[in-house]
């Protein structure tokens, strides 16, 4: 061989090109997708489409379930709100809470020598309740579910507490209905007036009755 360096260069070139080819073919990160054939790409595409459809279906199903859950929750909330409203109303009626609403205030003034039966106030209140009154108070004292009253010597004993005249009865309810019941011929008002009692009344848009023991 005339030139040993030429031989060395040839060997180096052979190794370089071989290694270059190996490195070139091994490096897949450059264009992994572009290496694939059309058939492989079509297969991947169809698989992706299938997966997308499955995901869409799953999404729709989840959305339906979510809607059902939401509507169920709304229904539960509505029922809960209704029950809470009913509970507060019942509490107000049972004297556990304040009661307010349209109603009527009746002021009864008795003179010293006026003779009245012990139960005139009971008749008045019972008539009002019969006419739809939801709650009542006498001189600011709310009548509870087990109320009792008695009139004696010019004093009205409301659940044991003595109240002096004039007596102010406040009712929450339909004022016209209550008044009509009280004004019935030979009714409560007629009997009281016959004994010289002075009756004044005033319908109000908002009558507030305190809770029992308040």
């Amino acid at each position, binding site marked *: *061989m*005339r*030139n040993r360096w*030429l*031989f*060395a260069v*040839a*060997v*180096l*070139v*052979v*190794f*370089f*090109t*071989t*290694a*270059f*080819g*190996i*490195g*070139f*073919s*091994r*490096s*897949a*990160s*450059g*264009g992994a997708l*572009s*290496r*694939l*054939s059309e058939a492989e790409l079509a297969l991947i595409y169809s698989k992706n489409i299938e997966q997308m459809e499955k995901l869409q279906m799953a999404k729709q199903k989840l959305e339906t379930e979510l809607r059902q859950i939401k509507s169920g929750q709304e229904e539960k909330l509505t029922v809960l709100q209704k029950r809470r409203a009913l509970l507060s109303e019942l509490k107000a009626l049972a004297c556990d809470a304040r009661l307010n609403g349209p109603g009527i205030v009746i002021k009864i003034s008795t003179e010293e020598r006026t003779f009245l039966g012990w139960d005139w106030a009971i008749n008045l209140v019972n008539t009002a309740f019969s006419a739809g009154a939801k709650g009542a108070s006498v001189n600011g004292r709310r009548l509870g579910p087990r109320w009792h009253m008695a009139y004696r010597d010019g004093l009205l004993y409301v659940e044991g507490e003595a109240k002096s005249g004039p007596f102010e009865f406040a009712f929450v309810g339909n004022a016209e209905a209550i008044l009509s019941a009280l004004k019935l011929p030979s009714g409560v008002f007629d009997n009281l007036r016959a004994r010289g009692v002075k009756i004044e009344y005033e319908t109000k848009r908002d009558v507030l009755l305190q809770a029992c023991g308040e």
Partner: protein
Amino acid sequence: MYYSKRAVSRNILLMAAVILVAFLGFYAGMLAAKRFPFSQAQARYVGVLILVVLDAVFGGLRAEIQDMFDLTIFSTGLLIGSALALWLVYLGDLFGIDLSLAAVVTFGGRIFQNVSIIRRILIEKVRRGR
């Protein structure tokens, strides 16, 4: 068999250079593949080019061993062989025929032929040396 110190050091140097060049070639190949994303069809161009280079190198070696090496013939052979092979592959792509096979068969056959001739000449030289 006795080898002089100079010959040993020269061979070691050659081996180191071979390893270094091989690593460089591998790295360059990876870099090229990452830099220029290629499809399977495009990778054939690189393969054919490598084949042409190998063919030229082995042909050059054979010519050198036979004391016939000419740099002009070598370099023009390399260039024209590369261009012809690339053109063949391109034509094959155009018509949907795998014409790169023609280049592969031709250059592959020539490589085997050249290596065979080199082997025979070297064996003969060794026999004469004895």
